[in-house]
């Protein structure tokens, strides 16, 4: 294919050639190119297909607002659908494919949709596909889904990595065009810490490689000087390839830096993209403006392009973009495009200006280019198959018959929209400005100033002067003395007469190119009553494509205003939502994926347990040993059964460090505990521990655990693993907010102490082996529920608690966490001759069910102390959190489901957690539902399955047979209701 690259000019490196492929064909480009400019330079005009009608589409813009030129970039797991060719920086080996076409871009079968176009108007799908009802999922919807969508997502894990950083600055500048650069300079010269972020890979915005005059030279020279000065000034950071995509509360900005997207592969140690959370004292929004098209027949043909894009491809990318051009405008800005075309040697067949009186800049540029100027004229239709061949022009006053003009390029300018999106993210609504025929920011969010094109100041000198003012003002607002402004002769000569659509064309007149929303669709929607802007958007899908309506939104509103007889000020615009341009999910997720999704908390014996080959289970963030497999174990149950037997017959050791531990001290500590626990702790003697139950203020159980008293003013509380943080927060709440007068302090020490359960008939013997001489662990000296600091292992102070979760003679021993690994090893070696058995969470769980202890499944937030059989613990003699509301009628109703034990009638049957209880002989229906099974286990001690359940009036029903039904398993088991304590109900063992 012939190269359309001009021999000189532009901001590209002709010395280096980059090879790339598009739809399998290899092309060449240069550093400085975008994929779009490289394709255009290779004469490729057809780059995509539209969403609904599959119309052939070419490049419309030169920026992030591109609706048409979307490609699938990269291959395999790195495939990125819907990537805008206009912002993809060319790299060597780039591989891109067109999308939403089959079998090929040129011959797309679904282009047949165009034939049905009269039916496929706005909202057609709401009116049909309803019969027969079952056909929607089976027939219609799959067809629609296959036709819809654009590119194909990768199905394999994203091979790249992402990272997140936070930054703080005095002044954030959004946009590195002339206005942003002058704002950055003004702020940085004043000593402000500045961050300037620009979405492009060259600073300068639409002025990159522009030859327009500024400050006694060209704007390109000015940009280079500004960048160099910024680089030299301290305390500022220029982030290229970085889009500030959203404004959040308290002056927090989200930005994404595309670190590696311009490279064939990531540099080692660098992420693909980096998420910036920027907190800025002041922000200057200098995000420029976006040109908008005009709706006329077939205005989507490849070869029809926004005027500013034409100028960019000619000036910046040195592309010979057409042979014979027409410029269609309603405003003064197209003058620079006319000049660029002239400079670029493109013959201009006509300049069609919709205004009866084109402004001076248009007439002057037309004259300079020697191009005929048709004033008061409009393009009604474009002609061509896959690309533009001619247009039809009409006099708006009927001064002449319509005429056809041959051309292969039509540069269209319908005026400009300030890129004010970031002023709306916190709820700001733009207002209509008649002078520039555009919406402009109204009330600005706190800390934001707007400068340049984003403020509707389109002229270069005006934008630069405005940026300077905004930068200096921002520095002042940060308490700095602004540097003196530089004198720039500024002028604002922008002139426009709004024109949204040209009627009478034969072809479809597109407003939203990507979603195929036409001027006609807007007319139909308005006729059907969808004339509120949000209704129009939702009914037609206007502005909902990947370009977020940047080119289409205001044009659509303009057409709606005409049809509904309102002004644009009355019509308004739809709410603009973040992000400013689409943001990769990976960037927002950062490192948090796969095994690094959440941190891992490792208990103190983790290393030792790993050496033993323990299988670990996720318990919240903790990784707890689940069981310790031994050769010969068939499965986890074998191991757990062996471990239970070891505990019940000899001694076992289990790491219970994951329990929450809170150290509570102060003169009022006892009184404080009386307030937070339902039962009384002020009567607890020193050296004793007590089981406590904590309620929420609504009377339901929050948590349980044991608290030990080590001194008159010193308690150590344990909480469940799951609720450790919540209980700590609750205690601080009670202390700081409810009872600030109490003299009490607390600190979470969960991570400071390693704590091991030592359980089994030989547990005393084991502890005696590690206790220092003189420690008396006899039942008389250290009875059940005793707690003391003792000396072990030759001088290490440990806390010993005589607690039993297993029901055996048992202890929990706690040492500072740094000794945790040593203590576990010591317990195991010292216990070798006692048959010590490490046990995991499975054995722990089996034994607690055998003992009927409530755990997470029973403490499910909807159970009361009474439901758990702990009603007697709730003191009626004192106030506590939850006391009053636990007396509400429904919480004391006699038929509440309460905790019972269940065992299968047939000992060979297994029980299911989550089964529901119904009376024997009744149907398994909701009407007969009497409760549910919370926990089940195979009990090695009893030789059959056992379970805990909540059963209506269950305490009165011990001995009754009921059904535990799990229809989701197709099972129903007859069970006997028994007291919830299965093993040693008198507690003789644990007191032994």
């Amino acid at each position: 294919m012939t190269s359309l690259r001009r021999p000189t000019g532009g901001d590209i490196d002709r010395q280096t050639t980059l090879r790339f492929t598009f739809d399998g064909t290899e092309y060449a480009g240069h550093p400085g190119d975008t994929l779009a400019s490289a394709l255009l330079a290779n004469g490729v005009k057809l780059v995509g297909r539209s969403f609904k009608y599959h119309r052939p589409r070419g490049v419309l813009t030169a920026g992030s607002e591109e609706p048409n030129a979307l490609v699938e970039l990269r291959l395999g797991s790195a495939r990125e659908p819907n990537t805008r060719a206009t912002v993809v920086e060319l790299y060597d080996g780039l591989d891109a494919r067109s999308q939403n076409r089959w079998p090929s871009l040129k011959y797309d079968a679904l282009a047949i949709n165009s034939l049905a176009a009269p039916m496929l108007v706005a909202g057609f799908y709401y009116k049909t596909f309803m019969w027969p009802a079952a056909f929607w999922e089976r027939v219609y919807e799959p067809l629609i889904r296959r036709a819809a969508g654009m590119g194909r997502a990768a199905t394999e894990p994203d091979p790249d990595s992402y990272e997140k950083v936070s930054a703080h600055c005095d002044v954030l500048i959004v946009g590195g065009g002339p206005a942003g650069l002058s704002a950055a300079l003004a702020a940085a010269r004043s000593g402000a810490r500045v961050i300037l972020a620009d979405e492009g890979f060259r600073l300068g915005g639409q002025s990159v490689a522009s030859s327009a005059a500024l400050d006694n030279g060209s704007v390109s020279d000015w940009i280079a000087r500004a960048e160099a000065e910024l680089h030299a000034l301290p305390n500022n950071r220029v982030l290229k390839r970085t889009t500030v995509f959203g404004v959040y509360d308290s002056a927090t900005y989200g930005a994404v830096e595309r670190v590696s997207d311009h490279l064939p592969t990531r540099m080692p140690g660098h992420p693909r993209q980096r998420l910036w959370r920027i907190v800025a004292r002041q922000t200057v929004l200098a995000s420029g403006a976006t040109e908008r098209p005009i709706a006329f027949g077939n205005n989507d043909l490849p070869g029809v392009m926004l005027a500013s894009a034409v100028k960019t491809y000619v000036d910046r990318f040195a592309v010979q973009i057409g042979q014979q051009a027409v410029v269609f405008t309603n405003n003064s800005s197209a003058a620079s495009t006319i000049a660029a075309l002239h400079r670029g040697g493109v013959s201009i067949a006509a300049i069609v200006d919709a205004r009866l009186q084109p402004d001076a800049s248009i007439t002057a540029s037309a004259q300079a280019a020697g191009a005929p100027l048709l004033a008061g004229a409009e393009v009604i239709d474009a002609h061509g198959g896959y690309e533009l061949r001619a247009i039809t022009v009409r006099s708006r006053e009927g001064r002449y018959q319509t005429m056809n003009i041959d051309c292969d390029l039509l540069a269209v300018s319908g005026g400009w929209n300030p890129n004010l999106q970031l002023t709306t993210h916190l709820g700001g609504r733009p207002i209509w400005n008649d002078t520039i025929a555009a919406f402009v920011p109204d009330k600005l969010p706190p800390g934001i100033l707007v400068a340049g094109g984003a403020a509707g100041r389109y002229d270069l000198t005006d934008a630069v002067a405005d940026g300077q003012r905004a930068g200096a003002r921002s520095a002042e607002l940060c308490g700095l003395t602004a540097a003196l402004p530089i004198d720039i002769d500024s002028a604002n000569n922008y002139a426009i007469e709004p024109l949204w659509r040209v009627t009478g064309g034969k072809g479809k007149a597109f407003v939203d190119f990507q979603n195929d929303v036409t001027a006609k669709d807007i007319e139909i929607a308005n006729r059907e009553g969808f004339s509120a802007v949000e209704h129009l958007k939702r009914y037609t899908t206007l502005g909902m494509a990947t370009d977020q309506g940047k080119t289409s939104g205001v044009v659509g509103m303009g057409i709606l205003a005409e049809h509904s007889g309102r002004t644009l000020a009355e019509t308004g615009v739809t709410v603009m939502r973040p992000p400013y341009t689409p943001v990769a999910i990976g960037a927002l997720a950062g490192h948090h994926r796969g095994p690094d999704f959440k941190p891992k908390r490792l208990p103190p014996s983790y290393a030792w347990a790993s050496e033993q080959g323990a299988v670990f289970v996720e318990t919240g963030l903790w990784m707890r040993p689940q069981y310790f497999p031994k050769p010969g174990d068939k499965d986890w149950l074998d191991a757990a059964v062996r471990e239970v037997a070891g505990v019940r017959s000899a001694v076992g050791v289990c790491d219970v460090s994951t329990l929450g531990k809170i150290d509570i001290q102060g003169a009022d500590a006892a009184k404080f505990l009386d307030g937070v626990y339902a039962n009384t702790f002020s009567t607890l003697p020193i050296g004793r521990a007590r089981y406590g139950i904590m309620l929420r203020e609504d009377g339901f159980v929050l948590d349980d655990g044991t608290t030990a008293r080590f001194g008159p003013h010193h308690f150590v509380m344990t909480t469940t693993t799951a609720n450790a943080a919540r209980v700590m927060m609750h205690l601080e709440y009670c202390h700081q907010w409810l009872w600030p007068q109490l003299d009490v302090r607390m600190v979470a020490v969960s991570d400071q102490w390693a704590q091991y359960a030592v359980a089994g008939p030989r547990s005393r013997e084991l502890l005696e082996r590690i206790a220092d001489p003189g420690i008396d662990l006899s039942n008389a000296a250290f009875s059940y529920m005793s707690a003391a600091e003792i000396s072990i292992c030759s001088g290490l102070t440990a806390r010993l608690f005589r607690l039993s979760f297993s029901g055996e003679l048992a202890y929990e021993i706690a040492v500072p966490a740094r000794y945790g690994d040593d203590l576990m090893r010591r317990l195991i070696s010292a216990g070798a001759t006692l048959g010590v058995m490490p046990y995991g969470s499975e054995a722990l769980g089996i034994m607690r069910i055998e003992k009927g202890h409530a755990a997470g499944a029973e403490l499910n937030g909807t159970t009361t102390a009474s439901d758990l059989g702990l009603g007697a613990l709730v003191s009626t003699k004192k106030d506590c959190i939850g006391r009053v509301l636990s007396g509400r009628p429904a919480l004391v109703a006699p038929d509440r489901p309460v905790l019972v034990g269940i065992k299968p009638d047939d000992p060979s049957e297994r029980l299911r957690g989550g089964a529901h209880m119904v009376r024997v002989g009744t149907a398994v229906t909701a009407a007969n539902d009497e409760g549910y099974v919370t926990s089940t286990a195979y009990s090695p001690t009893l030789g059959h399955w056992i379970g805990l359940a909540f059963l209506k009036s269950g305490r009165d029903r011990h001995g009754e047979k009921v059904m535990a039904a799990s229809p989701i398993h197709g099972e129903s088991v007859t069970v006997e209701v028994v007291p919830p304590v299965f093993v040693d109900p008198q507690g003789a063992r644990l007191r032994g």
Partner: protein
Amino acid sequence: MRIPCTYCGNRQLDEFTYFGDATVRRPDSEAADALPAFVSYVYDRTNPTGPHRELWYHGLGCRQWLVVTRDITTHEVLGAQPARDVASRSAVSAKPAEAPAS
């Protein structure tokens, strides 16, 4: 959103846990109307659209409870005080009620 912790300074939202309305205060559990008073305290909320006094916990910081005044519509934070100071100034139920004479 950033919350101005009175101890740690302005910190990011994700260091804090929100708890809710700071204008409702725990009633006297011994009062004759304790049950309806507690129902209203625990459940009923004014839920205003403008400035709202609310409790935040700096759990990933100094563990201080704060009474933050924040405009609920704009999310503008208007001020923060240590909850303990606010609670100490208003005398309502500053300790758990003593055991009734038995």
